[in-house]
């Protein structure tokens, strides 16, 4: 899978994963304390934060695997920095990345408009929810509560990860530092500003 990747793309992906790994960790700690007061639903409305790196990397690099690998690295960085969620977080990262990747794969890695990015956020939400349902033991909660959690997570995935991720990359694109990556190439192959 990595054969077609340039080294600079791989390094870019891992550096972004490091930056977002730190952000993820901050939100994780905030979320944990918050969750102590209102229970596991505390994470749901900010869950989109944890999918953002897969969408950002895929939007810039546009190669199969960018979503799942970047999300996995970000999770690994969270583990490397030391926290008490630990190795389980890497599995969660893989699952979330696969969810986002599935949306991009479904469109054949061709379209990268706002709808596809939002779809990727929704995909990550659904995948991570199924995983959380099993690992977190959500089975004990009533159906209504679980559906509320799922709804909040999907919204958060679409808005924070999809719309937010696009906003971040578009801002970055305007700085001109992304020249040389797939995002600056248009369909015809000529350079965009």
């Amino acid at each position, binding site marked *: 899978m990595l054969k077609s990747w340039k080294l600079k793309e791989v390094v870019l992906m891992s550096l972004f994963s490091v930056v977002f790994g730190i952000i993820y960790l901050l939100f994780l700690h905030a979320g944990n304390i918050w969750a102590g007061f209102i*229970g596991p639903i505390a994470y749901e409305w900010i869950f989109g934060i944890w999918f953002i790196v897969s969408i950002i990397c895929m939007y810039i690099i546009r190669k199969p695997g960018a979503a799942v690998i970047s999300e996995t690295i970000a999770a690994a960085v969270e583990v490397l920095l030391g926290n008490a969620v630990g190795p389980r977080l890497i599995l969660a990262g893989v699952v979330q990345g696969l969810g986002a990747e599935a949306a991009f794969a479904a469109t054949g890695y061709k379209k990268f408009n706002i709808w596809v990015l939002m779809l990727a956020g929704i995909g990550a939400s659904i995948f991570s929810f199924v995983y959380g349902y099993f690992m977190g033991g959500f089975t004990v909660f009533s159906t209504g509560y679980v559906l509320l959690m799922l709804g909040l997570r999907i919204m958060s995935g679409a808005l924070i990860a999809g719309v937010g991720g696009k906003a971040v990359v578009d801002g970055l694109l305007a700085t001109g530092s992304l020249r040389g990556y797939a995002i600056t190439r248009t369909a015809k192959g000529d350079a965009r500003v």
Partner: protein
Amino acid sequence: MKSALHNMNPSVKFLIITICMFTLAFFFNPWTPLIVWIGVLLVQLLFSRINWKVWTLFMIPFVIMAFGYFWTTLVFAEEKTGPVVWTILNMEIREVLLNHALALSFRVLAFSGLSLLFALTTKPVSFILSLMQQMKLSPKIAYSILVGYQFLPVLKDEFVQIQQAHRLRGATQKGNIITRLLNMRKILLPMLAGAVRKSERAAFAMEARGFTGEKRTSFYHIIGIGKLDVYMAALFLMLLIVSCASSSFI
């Protein structure tokens, strides 16, 4: 003896801990996770030299979180049958439900105990090297993660610099949490733009020094698997089996 956990092969430790967590997810009673949590504590007391102050600091949020799971389960759970154990504020706590709530919160504790064991006894760099040497992680990714990891202090300095630059020009934002969160973008974007440039430079430097990203057979830092790993893995599996078996006795 006291350094056994620190000297364990990181990949083996990672695998064992993952296996423990997945197995725990299948058990839904308060005893299994509780026994695992206590067992993990004992293993750490005997075989590691971790800083218990740091351990406590990391554990506190998870205790709060476990408590959150405990009471939300009691309030929002579906099960409404079985004998009543206590009554508080006109709310009847039923036995099945209490067991569920305890199971969920002990699970949080067991998971965080296992994770802390890994986090506090593993060196990040040797974990990545071990993933590359034992788990066949692509060197392209492994070394890129290491590059990213080495940039951490630089990124931290840059974050402070950007903040100071903003402050110097009077661009500091005050306001409620939402405006402050939206303004994070003003710090995030320069940091990401810097990250793009740094990654490009690092990639060129790696290529200039002959890094091709091909699989290798020899390494400078060798991280091996030894007898110690077998013994420790056996110890963890024993703990897991005892805790799982306990669910059928109690």
